[in-house]
């Protein structure tokens, strides 16, 4: 078993290879400050992040599609991060959980530092033990992309065009 520091630095490499960006911070509040500074709009947040932030000034997330579609910045939370591949594991059983990670342009995913695991197999082991989590689970590795036109890699298709993983703590 590797140390947290080793796992974080391996994760950073994996994420970089997948064209994702790393942001290290101490707590959700700090993450919020960062996200809020990125564009003129208020970031969209997933229900779980909403609960973490405990801020009275956040819009409600009742009508995810209309309020979230194509918002500049969205914040969501990952259960695990995989050092090997630079992936984050999102557990999103209800469509409302997914709205933020699907429809915003720049997605910021918060994950606790101690939830960085070594390998993809650790992620699947976790998933196998959490049958409810597998209702809708996604390993996200970098921003959405395509190479369908003349194999030219283009970042940002239906999903976000920018992905930042914020490692908390």
């Amino acid at each position, binding site marked *: 078993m590797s140390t947290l520091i080793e796992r974080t630095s391996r994760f950073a490499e*994996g994420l970089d*290879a*997948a064209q994702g960006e790393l942001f290290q911070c101490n707590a959700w509040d700090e993450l919020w400050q960062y996200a809020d500074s990125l564009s003129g709009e208020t970031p969209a947040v997933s229900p779980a992040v909403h609960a973490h932030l405990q801020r009275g000034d956040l819009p409600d997330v009742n009508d995810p*599609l209309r309020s979230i*579609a194509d918002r500049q910045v969205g914040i969501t939370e990952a259960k695990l991060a995989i050092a*090997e*591949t*630079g*992936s984050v594991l999102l557990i999103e*059983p*209800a*469509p409302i959980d*997914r*709205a933020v*990670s*699907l429809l915003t342009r720049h997605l910021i995913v918060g994950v606790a530092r101690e939830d960085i695991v070594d390998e*993809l*197999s650790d*992620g*699947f*082991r976790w*998933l*196998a033990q959490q*049958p409810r989590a*597998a*209702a*809708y*689970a*996604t*390993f*996200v*590795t*970098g*921003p*959405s*992309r*395509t*190479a*369908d*036109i*003349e*194999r*030219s890699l*283009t970042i*940002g*298709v*239906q*999903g*976000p065009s920018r992905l930042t993983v914020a490692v908390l703590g």
Partner: protein
Amino acid sequence: MSASTAPFSVRYRRSVGDPDLKPRLLDFQRSWRESRDAQVRRLEQRTERSFDALRRDFAAVKDATLERMDDYIAEFRANAEAAGATVVELSTAAEAVSYIASICKSRGIDLVVKSKSMVSEEIELNHELEQQGITAIETDLGEWLLQLAEERPSHLVMPAIHQKRQYVAEILGAELGREFDPDDIPEMVASARDGLRRHYLSAGAGLTGANALVAETGSIMVVTNEGNMRLATSLPDVHFVTAGIEKLIPTWADAERQLQLLPRSATAQTLSTYTTCITGAQPGKEMHIILLDNGRRAMREQDVISDALRCIRCGACANVCPPYQVVGGHTFGHIYTGAIGLVNTTFHHGIEDAAGPQGLCVSCGACETVCPVAIPLPKQILEVRHQAHESGHAPLWERLALKLWARPRLFHYLMGIGALAAGLASLAGLVRNDHLRLPLPRKLRWRSVPTLPLRSGQTLVKSRATQDAIADSPASGQTVDLFAQCLADRLLPSAVDSAAKLIEAGGGLVNLPDGQHCCGLPAFDAGDWGTARQMARQTIETLEQSGNEIVTPAPSCVIAMQDHWPRLFRDEPDWLDRAEAVSNRVHDLASWLDSPGRLPDGCLSDGANGSWTAHRFCQASNRGDPGARIDLLVERLTGEPALPLEEPEVCCGFGGLTSLAAPEVGEGILERKLNCVAESGCDTLITNNPGCAIHLRAGANAGGASHETLHYADFLAARLPRNE
């Protein structure tokens, strides 16, 4: 009729007439190879296991699952249904289409958004739904472009790889009613986001495929990059999954094993952007999982074919396929493309649709080396080709030529006449550098026609003085049978003579079995196993006389005897034994010269000057034969290093009958090879299979290349000391 649904001959003509296709696919294959190899190296380092070990592990998982398919289907069904999904097992494409249509109708759904699914292509779902008034919209960018152009995919994972950006700009412009700059690819991609978004919001159903069906939890796993799959499964109320029954795997641990291999082999990514696992219907929604047979159970019943059900649709087999590079997937395949398409089309779509492209495969074996589930594709393609031949899908000229070839006396008689004619042509000034100067039709001009030398290889061997031994070897004093190979005997006789000299140089004595002719390879390759058996029997009878070890300068014959004979005689135990007794004694000359007829290091170090490089016979190389490394042998014996050659093991385009049946394919592959040879700057190109040597020489002659082409036996024998 669109470019991709026309009859095979039309598709073939179109693809060879497209000047952009070859260079684009060549670029693609080379860059894929580089990134995929780097990925595989990293995987091997991290896991401390070889790619081969990793893929065999996962293949074993697939095999065990297929073995107990019905148990796993039951387990999957129970778990998926417990999670609220509906699972249906359907036998045919028509049943699958009508199931989906009836659910749509009963729910009042007239729009379905689709994520990429090869099974939905297999059952031609879009077209069929349209007949019933239901619109299906592809949301994967590549698939959407195909839909707009009314085309089929030309690659399993890069479906629109054949489309040029100018063409993409045109079809997007027509669909969206605005102009696109073909050079602004990001803008075209962005338009897909805008152009498709409204469909997600109004569609009643989303449809996806599945890369894996995980039995232990009844989950599907889908690997994508664009994010469209997640949208298609999140917004509409109904989720259809179309998947072949072979996609089952037992556990999540197996899913992880599959993921080690799939993205690396498909897009050369460590992991695709989205690996999505869904279990059951989401609250308030429906999930219908369609498990399709459509010929898969029949595949499982055929010993040679059943391994093809391991396929995880990565497309790697197309990415290393030389004929695919020349003609693309609309020609090299049907709906499934690449090597696997040549195999499974028969079972999903019938022999009619499968037969056309069979003759394009050059049997180089590259596909099997990269297949992440180790499917013996070359062997399976030859099996399907045989079935196509048996059902009457072989050109008449080919059948007749093979019938002549199968009769040694007639063959030699005709060759004799040919040689005389060539002699006359030479007198008439129609020969230059051993090739005829004939007015050939344009499509054949890329390769000159070699003349037939008056004296065959066997005649040369019989009529010369023996070579003195230059060293002792474990084979000193041992008599070996020399098998000339029919092609070398007539078209490259010097190689036969040189082989005899090199055996003698190592102290061996050469016996030339009388009446030897052809091992049956050309007929076997063409799918004509009846004729192949006739030739093989004749060769077995000839070679079983002496009981000596057998040496040949033709590695293709060694492969035919060791790999193909057991298949030819699988129903004839007596002949099988006899065939094995002979093939156990056969050696490729190159490996013989290492052991036991070993020539010492540096023993041929003085000789002709000039640089050389080596094209290594693809089939032997891809099979992992040590003797295929003629570069190492020649370096060892001459002390002169080879010049580096790019893609030294990629096929040269000879491919037996392929270069006759599909001359443009032979030409295209040869061009790739000769460009690499030219870049090497060598004076001499050596190679190990006589067919390749003849083909490469004739191509170089037609193209006016400056290098000389030799069989390595000739290259080495020229350096032997003259007898006292």
